[in-house]
């Protein structure tokens, strides 16, 4: 089951990567990043079963960082939305040439 869990984790991570590249809606991109974090958490939990409790501790920390990141990221999205009236990342082109 360990191998299967790691394969599932890899698949979730790859789908998350695909989503980050393919989508334009900033909130969905953000969701896909959460999906990637979650895939890594799954690998941590699966491996921690056979290597000690530290893996679960790291998952705990990753969840905390994800919560902080979601709060700040969504605040940034709100503040960008005030300026551009959209969350389409193609419209945020101030740093683009």
């Amino acid at each position, binding site marked *: *089951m*360990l*191998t*299967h*869990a*790691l394969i*599932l984790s*890899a*698949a*979730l*991570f*790859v*789908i*998350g*990567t*695909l*989503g980050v*590249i*393919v*989508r*334009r*809606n900033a*909130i*969905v991109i953000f*969701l*896909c990043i*959460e*999906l990637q974090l*979650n895939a890594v*958490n*799954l690998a941590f*939990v699966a*491996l*921690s*079963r*056979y*290597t*000690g*409790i530290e893996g*679960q*501790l790291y*998952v*705990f*920390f990753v*969840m905390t*960082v*994800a*919560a*902080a*990141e*979601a*709060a*700040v990221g*969504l*605040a*940034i*999205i*709100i503040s960008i939305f*005030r300026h551009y009236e959209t969350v*389409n990342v193609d419209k945020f082109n101030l740093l683009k040439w």
Partner: protein
Amino acid sequence: MIEVLFVLFAVVALGGAFGVVISKSPVASLLFMVATLASVAGIYVLFEAHFLAAIQVLVYAGAIMVLFLFVIMLLNLGHDYRADLRFGLWSLLAFVVAGLTAGVLAQGFMDVGDTGFREDGAAIAAALDEAAREEGVAGVIAEPLFTDYVVAFELMGLLLLVAIVAAVVLAKPRN
């Protein structure tokens, strides 16, 4: 039984993940994400990480997803049904990156075996079960968290404080 449950959770998780990427409405994406998170929590239970499964449902599927939903509602994006998938060169790039990532991960996971790269994996799993019986599932995590990793734990508190202040400052309208 456990294998059947694992397959069930894995299918829901993968389906939800695909739903997140391809559904047009951001609200639908979010609900697919909740399904994925809940089934990953189920897989945590299968790996005896009961505390993390509870935290996953409470914090991730509960709090963080509600935060996302709240922002979607606040910005009134729920009716945004335009497909915003990139096609052409972007999707080619996406598949190349996804393929490379999958290849690297597969190479890393190939020789994991049944006990996570280690000879004594089964013994460690038995020791973890024993500790969980004695201290409870939360106690097993709490004990190292408040001894060896207490500095990291305190820093997490500081990080959350900074994040709250930053979120308030960033989201406040300028005038």
